[in-house]
């Protein structure tokens, strides 16, 4: 236990596994306590039997105090009092409800006849993210590397990019719709705007961190201009570049929901807003979690792939 809190020291593999598991188990335990122990929170009453009160219906939720007032009133008038059990507000479903929804949301047909199934919504979202990230990377990675390599190139690009990255990407939503229509174009654009500017700056910095001694060594070995870039700078930063791309992909996901609200709502966002409208909050949570699973899953696959791709990279052992 004591070894867990030593500054900059690694912990044993067993402890890693244990703590890693706990980081997921603890929030679920907390959620279960709030959901399953009536004495904790439960600010409302779910009516099981309306008794003599005609404005109550079974399954209805109301504040504890309002329910107590109604019950007291009924008793005063010597009528049958309503019955109910403590409940949480409808926006906080219990873990088992969300777990069930994780499954049922995939097999529940869409509410409207031409509406998308959940898996279709997800696939649509993944495509938007994919294209947004690919377009951003095709531009951002080379520009970032050039900025990091050539101080002059950095100086003519970075001040403006630094300014632009403070402009919130969703602010360009209306503009993007006006230019690109209401379908996927503006959505992909928002993700590109949200990712690209950070990407150039982050990759520029990563490139600048390359040990200049490696470049000098290559120079004294007779390496010239373009080969210096392709044979030293790029391979030298590749593991870090890969790590940056993983972080930026996560970044792109965070722009997804806003992007999908632009123009016609589509994808997982459309699904979530629909379900919220019907007050299927368990399904809403399930859908949000699915985004998390996809994100974490992708990142873990990429991390494992990274270890294979860059066997010489020592920092990977530490972080992954």
């Amino acid at each position: 236990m004591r070894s867990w809190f030593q500054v900059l020291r690694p912990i044993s593999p067993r402890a890693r596994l244990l703590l890693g598991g706990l980081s997921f188990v603890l929030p679920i335990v907390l959620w279960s306590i709030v959901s399953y122990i009536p004495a904790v929170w439960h600010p409302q009453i779910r009516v099981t039997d309306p008794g003599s009160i005609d404005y109550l219906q079974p399954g209805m939720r109301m504040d504890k105090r309002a329910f107590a007032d109604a019950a007291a009133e009924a008793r005063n008038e010597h009528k049958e009092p309503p019955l109910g059990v403590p409940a949480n507000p409808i926006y906080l479903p219990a873990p088992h409800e969300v777990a069930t929804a994780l499954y049922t949301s995939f097999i529940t047909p869409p509410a409207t006849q031409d509406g998308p199934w959940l898996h279709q919504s997800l696939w649509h979202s993944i495509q938007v993210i994919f294209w947004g990230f690919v377009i951003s990377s095709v531009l951002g990675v080379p520009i970032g590397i050039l900025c990091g390599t050539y101080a002059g190139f950095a100086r003519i690009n970075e001040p403006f990019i630094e300014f632009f990255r403070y402009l919130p990407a969703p602010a360009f939503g209306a503009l993007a719709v006006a230019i690109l229509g209401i379908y996927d174009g503006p959505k992909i654009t928002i993700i590109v705007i949200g990712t690209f500017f950070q990407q150039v700056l982050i990759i520029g910095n990563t490139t600048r961190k390359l040990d200049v001694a490696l470049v000098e060594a290559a120079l004294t070995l007779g390496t010239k201009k373009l080969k210096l870039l392709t044979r030293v700078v790029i391979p030298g930063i590749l593991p870090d570049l890969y790590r940056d791309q993983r972080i930026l992909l996560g970044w792109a996901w965070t722009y997804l929901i806003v992007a999908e609200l632009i123009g016609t709502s589509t994808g997982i966002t459309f699904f979530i807003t629909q379900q919220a409208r019907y007050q299927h909050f368990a399904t809403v949570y399930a859908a949000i979690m699915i985004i998390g699973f996809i994100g974490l899953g992708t990142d873990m696959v990429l991390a494992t792939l990274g270890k294979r791709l860059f066997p010489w990279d020592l920092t990977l052992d530490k972080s992954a």
Partner: protein
Amino acid sequence: MREAVLNKFVSPNTLPSYLDQSAAVRERFQRLKRREVILKVNNLSKVFTTAKGSTLALNKINFETHRREFLCVVGPSGCGKSTLVRIIAGLEQHTSGDVLLEGKPVTEPGSDRGMVFQGYTLFPWLTVKKNVMFGLEVNGKGHHEAEQQALQWLQLIGLEKFAESYPHQLSGGMKQRVAIVRALANQPRILLMDEPFGALDAQTRCRMQAHLLEIWRKIDITIVFITHDLDEAIFLADRILVLSAHPGEVQELIEVPVPHPRSNAQFISPEFLATKARLEELIHQGAAPDEDDDAGTYQMVARLTDVSDNVD
């Protein structure tokens, strides 16, 4: 004060002069000087310009090295010995004067001058073999030929078993051995070494020095070797260029009277000690006063132990 200390141990009366050379050594230097000049440094000056003003780092440096010569450059810290070697490598521009490699002025880095740095500069993403192939490939050799030559070089330093290892799997000494042959694989006219063994522990450094002399004997290479370790300089060098600091100027070019082949036993030979005494003298003379202010520092250390408990 230092000289007094020094004299207590090596009295100048009992030592020969460092200028005395045995017949064999004299004959060797004559042969060396008959060989063609590889590197000629002519009135070389370097001024660093910063926001605060400009500093003269190197002032009118003149020297030349002959083919297959081993030249060491020593001097107090701040004398610009690294700057000098970086200018020769073409990694830095000089302010005035000339650097001529076989008569051609040096303006930029090139494969005719190999360099080994103090830090480990093997490319971490390449295996040992591919590190050695790097220079050959960027200079237009085919993959197969480069591979053959790289393996031969690795054999020369006894690391052929590590051909497929990555640099991070090697010890510090092995890394520097690979760095040396990586530079030599290009068959440069001159090998520049900037304190290459500075980061190694004492035993490894000793072995590396012997290794380097062995390599130098076997191939046609001229070496300019920067160090601050005087023993290392005397052990390795034919001649030692001594610089003074602020600004960096040539104090003396010493012909090392220690005969070849060199061995560890020579560390206590009279010629060796005489040369070392001369170097000590030059370097402590040439050091800037603010950097050699030991006496003042000692007085400032308060006594932090029981006064009756003396260590000496």
